[in-house]
């Protein structure tokens, strides 16, 4: 029988994987994917709690998160396209005009 802890640990691991991806990967799209992974890990947490607590709030939250993630994806990809048009790269190593 899967307990709440299993879900929480899984989501924790997923969240960590996502975070590590953000830190390690160099392609902006992949990084964004990793962020999505983090968000979905959170969603999993919400759902698990919601189920465990018998409370629907968590599930509603998840809907919002999904919607927002979609909006973010749209904006994000647009930004990347704009950047790519000027720089012809979306490698984060190249996003370094401004520093210090």
């Amino acid at each position, binding site marked *: 029988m899967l307990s709440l802890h299993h879900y929480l640990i899984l989501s924790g691991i997923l969240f960590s994987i996502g*975070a590590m991806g*953000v*830190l*390690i*990967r*160099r392609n*902006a799209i992949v*990084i964004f994917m990793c962020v999505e992974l983090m968000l979905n890990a959170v969603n999993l947490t919400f759902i698990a709690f919601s189920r465990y607590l018998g409370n629907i709030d968590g599930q509603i939250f998840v809907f919002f998160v999904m919607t927002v993630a979609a909006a973010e994806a749209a904006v994000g990809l647009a930004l990347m396209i704009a950047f790519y048009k000027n720089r012809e790269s979306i490698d*984060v*190593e190249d*996003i*370094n*005009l*401004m*520093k*210090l």
Partner: protein
Amino acid sequence: MFDNVWLIPLFPLIGFLINGFLGKKIKNEAIIGGIGTLAIFGSFLVSCGILIEMISRGPENRVFEKVLFPWIHAGNFKADMAFLLDPLSVVMIMVVTGVGSLIHLYSIGYMHGEEGFYRFFAYLNLFCMSMLLLVLGNNMLVMFIGWEGVGLCSYLLIGYYFHKKSAGDAAKKAFVMNRVGDFGFLVGLFTLYWWLGDNANVWTINFMEIKKAAHLLPYGGVVTVATLCFFVGATGKSAQIPLFTWLPDAMEGPTPVSALIHAATMVTAGVYMIGRMSFVFIKSPDTMMVIAVVGAATAIFAATIGTAQNDIKRVLAYSTVSQLGFMFLAMGTGAFAAGIFHLMTHAFFKACLFLGSGSVIHAMHYALHHAHSHDDAQDMRNMGGLRKSMPITFITFLVSTIAISGIPGFSGFFSKDEILWQAFSNPYHGGLNIVLWGIGAVAACFTAFYMFRLVFMTFYGESRINPKAKSHLHESPLVITIPLMVLGFLAAVGGYIGLPKLVGDLFGGIPNYFEQWLEPVFEQAQEYGHHYAQSGGHHNVALEWGLMGASVVIALVGITIAFTMYVKNTELPGKFTSTFPALHRAVYNKWYIDELYDFLFVNPCKAFGNFLWKGFDVLVVDGIVNGVAAVVKGWSSAFRYTETGYVHNYAFVMAAGTVAILGYYIFR
């Protein structure tokens, strides 16, 4: 008349203001000089009036205080602008205004044609005012105004020829050395004020109030501290060891200045101050001894230097230092009246000597100028045989020289002999008395020697003057010679108001008027003195006669030596010099005291100041300030490299921050 005492300093003040502000516009020397002279002469007249009134009053009614206005009042401290008239201050104002008037008159002739003639008279008047404040002040602070005021005027007048570097240097030196003394004066004042206030609840700096409270003061202890501090002040003003070196340099000023300030009046302020506070000084046997020893030492020390100087004014300057030493010797041995008496006679003969030397210089200068010669007009080696061309100057000069040398019948004899006798006989310093007398006697011998050396080199022998200039030499005008004659007369007869009792008894019991006159002033001091007098003193008439004779002999010895060396056998000085070159060089160079002071104080001070500025202030103090700024700036330039511009670095910092926070809270 007493009520009008404020007029005395007022007249010179008015003279100063008129000449100071309008002098440049007036231009006419006669008017400027007239104003200046009349101003001080007016004071002289008022002083005479006061003297007459004081004589007419009984001895117990001769103290008078006049408050002009309250000056500094803060809490228990009160200093009024107020004057004190008593026999002592009247003697002083008579000397200051009398000699002052003569010197003003003299200056009209002497300063004729000088640039800044008006300036000279303005300063001279200002000086007189300050000096009168000094002697008239009824409290230490008014005295201190005058005390510093005369220092200021001395500064201004020494630096009168300000375009000469030496004059500027001398002026500054005089002021700074005086300031060292003033520092002592101030600390002495504070000590006395604080002790009396704190321990006896007499918060005062008023002389008469201190006098009344003087019985509360202990013998020695704090009084020694206070009086020694005051004495430091006196050494500064009166050019005693160790602060005497400014006075010879002060000869950079015009000669009337030397006569008035650096001979007759200002330099005697220290003596006056001790006299004024005799009731305090005498309470400290140690201080009295210090004063006596310093006085005696200065007397002999300056006299030795005087023997080897060639500048006519410098000889007189060292002579002044030496004579002041005599006065301090008198004060230190409790012979207050004698000290003041010598102060007065010294004012007469030394003023006359200075003015006489001025007359010589004036003539020499004129002559050399017309001969287009660049010889030094003040160097005695360029003079000689002047008695023929300048008879009046010569005679007055000779009279004064006899007076200073202590030849019986002239004023200096009476006062100097009184000092020597009292130094010997007063019961304060035990065995030291004889030593003091001995030093004084030797110094007197030196005095006679160098003074006659001066006379012989200047007025006798063959003329060493540039031959071309010789024809231009002539006697100075009346405006110069009249003061000479008056002062010469006073130098001759001024001593008779203070005949020693011994001599007076010979002539049917003529009392010592001068001592009698000052008796109420010093009565209290003498009483305190008896408190610790060691023995009854030596009141042996025969001994007194003997010592008097001895001092006459000593003077004659000095004169004889001078005569031998500078008239009869003129090679002797050269021989002497070549026999003892080191000694001569040391004496000629004033025992290298100036160099010693430079080495000990001036140069280290400058070096230390320079170190503090460049080494400490800029590098360390400001270095720390700028260093802090630099460190912050450095951090700034270092920390900005944390902003690498890479997203993953930023994300890493965020993640690391989160982990650190979580870790801290979970595992703490």
